[in-house]
Each structure stands twice: as C-alpha cells, then as structure tokens.
C-alpha cells in the first residue's frame, strides 16, 4: 500500500516538474519567436536600403528618407534624462522606506508606491501635456513645452515605482546581523546604511535600476503625447528644452497606416529590432548582476 502511494506521489511530482519545465522552455521559445519575427519583418530593411542611408540624420518616410539616427538619439536622450532623475530619487526613496521610516509608515508607503506603477501611461501623458509642459515653457523659457525634458520627467515618474519597489526588496533582504554587527562596531546609523546595507544590496539595487531604465526606454504613449515628436538631431546643448521623436513614438504613430510589405513597413520593424536589442541588453545586464550576487552569497556561506 505504502509503495503504491509513493509511486503515485512520484508520478504526480514528475508530472508537475515536467509541466514547470515545459512552461519555462515555452517562455524562452516565445522570446526567440518574437526575435525571429522581428528579423523576418525588419531584416528586409537592411537589404532594401544601404546601411549608410539608415544612419542619415533625416527621418521623413513619405519621401523615402529613412535616417533612424534622430530617433535612436531621441530615445537615448529622453531615457538618459529620466535615469538622471529617477535613479538617485528611487535609491533614496528605497533607503528611506527600508531603513529610516518607522514600521507603520513603511506598511503604508510600500503598497502606495506599488499602486503608482499601475497608473495607465495615457493618463500620465495627459497630465504631462496639460500640467508639466506649460511649466517647462514658462519657467525654463523654452520655445514650446513639448520637450525632451517633459518626456524625461514623465518617464522618471513612471520608472520610480519599479525602482523603489525592487530596491526596497533588495535592502530588506540584507540579513539583520549585518546591521547589528556594524552598529556593534560603533558605526552610526548613517554609516551603517551607506557602508554596509546599501553595498550588501548592491546587485539588487542595480537590477532595480536596470528594470526602471527598461521601462523608460520602452514607454510609448506618454512620450508620444509630451515630447512633440519632431525628428531633429538632439545634438545641441539646449536639446533637453527642444522637442524630440523617440523610436517607440515613431512606431506607434506610423505603423497604423503603413502599407504592408513596403520599405517603410520594414524599417519600422527594424526600429523595433533595435529597441528590442537595447531592452534585451539592459535585462541581460540585470540578470547577470543577480547571478553574480548569488555566487557571492554562495562564497560567503561556504
């Protein structure tokens, strides 16, 4: 009887194990399929137009001007601006929530920060259009309020909840004994936080930052509404106070009515491919940093 029961248990267990493995493989398979699809639809662009033309500075697909450089730089500029705002702010907020705030405040703050992540981007885009863009024009003396800076502020706001939430989890995972040891050695609370807790959670915090940047670079709707979508080369010093056009906004604005199979269609997919590679790279770095952290912990324990 017991033997049969154990056999049944084993069967269930091996079935569950296989199911989980199949799901895992399926996810990777989907990722590969998406990548292949992008190559299939976008690859033709690299054959139809010489690569030199893709690196031109003018994007005007109606007249077959397919220079994607202003779009790539536009995305990078807006994302860099968002990172400059959200990374320090996100880290400081996470430190406050995890280390400084009293327990009751933390119990309130954490769920609220996570709810922020769920605000639809159209709503934020509208907010940026009516509230932030007039401020940028009036107080920073920009010709128009629809600028890269406006986009960066919106994206920073959208990336913050991700960064705070993940970084806070990482800080929370640092063993209590680390802090106790630091305090016992005579370190102040400030020293404990910056010299012990934050370095110990370094990889987790890095992951948080990568995820936040990943969210910012892939965001479409809010960016399309507040950046003005002018495909100019953002190389002048005042570029933050000028409009830009991002890769995501270009795909969203133009994919709707492009003729299937045309060069323009292929180029839009090629832009998608570039975007996919950039986000993939960011996620890869994040994954690698988690992996490294695990190895380090393994060393500590042995």
């Amino acid at each position, binding site marked *: 009887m017991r033997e049969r029961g154990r056999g049944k248990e084993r069967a269930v267990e091996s079935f569950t194990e296989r199911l989980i493995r199949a799901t895992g493989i399926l996810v990777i398979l989907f990722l590969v399929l998406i990548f292949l699809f992008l190559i299939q639809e976008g690859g033709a662009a690299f054959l139809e137009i010489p690569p030199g033309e893709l690196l031109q*500075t*003018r994007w*005007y*697909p*109606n*007249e077959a*001007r397919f220079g994607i450089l*202003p779009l790539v730089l536009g995305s990078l500029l807006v994302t860099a601006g968002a990172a400059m705002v959200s990374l320090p702010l996100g880290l400081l907020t996470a430190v406050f929530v995890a280390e400084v705030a009293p327990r009751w405040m933390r*119990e309130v703050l*954490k*769920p609220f920060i*996570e*709810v922020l992540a*769920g605000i639809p981007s159209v709503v934020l885009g509208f907010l940026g*259009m*009516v509230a932030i863009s*007039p401020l940028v*024009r009036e107080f920073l003396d920009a*010709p*128009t*309020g*629809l600028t890269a800076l406006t986009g960066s502020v919106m994206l920073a706001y959208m990336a913050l909840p991700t960064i705070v*939430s993940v970084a806070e*989890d990482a800080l929370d995972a640092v063993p209590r004994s680390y802090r106790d040891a630091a305090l016992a050695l005579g370190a102040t609370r400030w020293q404990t936080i910056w010299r012990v807790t934050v370095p110990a959670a370094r990889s987790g915090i890095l992951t948080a930052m990568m995820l936040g940047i990943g969210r910012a670079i892939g965001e479409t709707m809010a960016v*399309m*509404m507040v950046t*003005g*979508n*002018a*495909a*100019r*080369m953002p190389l002048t010093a005042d570029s933050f106070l*000028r*409009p830009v*056009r991002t890769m995501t906004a270009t795909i969203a*604005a*133009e994919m*709707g*009515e*492009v*003729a299937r199979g045309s060069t323009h269609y292929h180029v839009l997919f090629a832009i998608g491919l570039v975007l996919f590679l950039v986000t993939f790279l960011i996620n890869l770095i994040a994954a690698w940093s988690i992996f490294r952290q695990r190895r380090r912990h393994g060393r500590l324990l042995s």
Partner: protein
Amino acid sequence: MRRPFLALLPLLLLVACRPPEPGGGADQPLATAIQNVGSDTIVNLALAWAETYQTLHPEVRIAVTGGGSGTGIAGLINGTVDIANASRKIKPEERESAEANGITPVEHVIARDAIAVVVHPSNPVDRLTLRQISDIFSGRITNWSEVGGEDRPIVLLSRESNSGTHVYFLEQVVRLGDSDNTTLFSPETLLMPSSEGISAEVRQNPNAIGYDGLGYVTPDQKTIAVARGPGGPFVLPTVESVNDGTYPISRDLYMYTAGEPAGVIADYLAWIRSPEGQRIVGELGFVPLRIDQ
C-alpha cells in the same frame, strides 16, 4: 509585497465603479452595416452624416472611425472598409496594391475644405503670403520678427505625416504647388498625433503656428489671412472665399468605394451629395459642393 491585498484595493474599487451594461443592445436583426473609416479631417462630418442618415433609414448601420486618410485607404485595400474617407487623392501605389487585391477604388468628391493657418490670439501677425508660410514651415524663417511680429522663436506644428492634411499642406503650401520642388518640413516641426493636439498647443503657446482643416478651428485661435503673392489680397478662409476661389489653400474631400457603389452604399453617397447632405457640410464649417454639379 507583504500586503498584496492592500495594493489591489484601489483596483477593486475601480472595477466596482464600472457602469452597468447598456440594456437591450441587439434589439433588431442585424441591419446592413457600412464600415466608414479614414481621414480625421472628415470624421466629424462623416459622423454627422451617419447620425442623420440612420434616423432617416433605421435599417442602415454606419460605423464611422477616424485614423487618417492612409488608414481608411489601407482598410479599403484589405477589404475591411466599405467607404474610405480621404482628404487627399488616392496615391498611385495605393491604387496599384488595391488592384493587386482585385479592388478598383472609385472616387467621390463629397465636400470642399479650406486649410486655415492658426496662431495664438496674442500674436500681432495677422497676414502672411504663401511664400512666407512656406519659408516658415521649411525652417528658413525662424523668428516672428522676420514677418512683422515680436522677437520670439517660431514653433511649428503639423499633423503626423500619415495625415492627408499634412501631405496636402506640404505639396500646396511648403512646395507652393511646384511638383519639382523637393523642400521638406523643417526637422524642428512638431508632429502632433491629433487635430486636438495642435489646437491645444496653439491655444497656450504664443510662439506656435499650426494649420488644420477649417472645421477644426475654434474661436480661441487666431486665423491668418493668406495671400497668393506679396501684393495681396489677403483673404481669411470662409465658406464664401473658398467657394469663389479667392482663399488660396482649399481642397476637395473624398470618399472612396471598392468598385462602383451599389445598393445601400450608393443610396448613402447619393444622399450625401444631395442638398440635405450638403447642408450638414456647411453647418460643420466645411464648404458645400455646388448643388447644380
């Protein structure tokens, strides 16, 4: 993540706020449904026609959607659209791909429209020649003081490049109607996803200049009087000045059908071109076709 329920609470409240399903729904057998998609310039006009026509003929259902002239024609080519609204003529390559799909697009002029050039009400500039507008939008003139205004940078607003209004403005104004001219919009031009985006920015930004169909100009924007040459006359876009041809930036608006229209669609198009249909054109700020045509 220790309190997932607390985080979900606002979401649940939102779901609870959802209005009840509208009662009835399919109260009559499926009537003939006409899919009418295309130009954002025409969408309000098409909606007004569809509403009036459906009260006159309850057995007909007309679904109107915007998205741009290109979107409508792409739908016509794919066979998902019965009537495509376009504020420009169909392009030769679009006609080719339609014919490759076994569809012959047939053109119907359904109204006329003027493109108004608009600025912020506080802008002292009230008249421009076509050449000046062309120089402004191609980036050769970048400050309002060069055309008699204040010392302010000019912020250019345009519809997205898939819009029929964009293409028309490029050909007729930026390139001054010269087909050998290859001038483009300045790369500094802000491409707005919607007509509303343009009017919102023109309303609040004293540096802005934009253009849009006459039917979309609201009283809180200032319309520029336009002249063909430096000698004038400078004409404001009105129904009269478009009809007598003195306002220089006006165009025909089209509907395209797959092949010669028949049945319900033919009746609808005939009604649109009737005096009754054209009366609605005038009410929405567009220019009616002359009925005797």
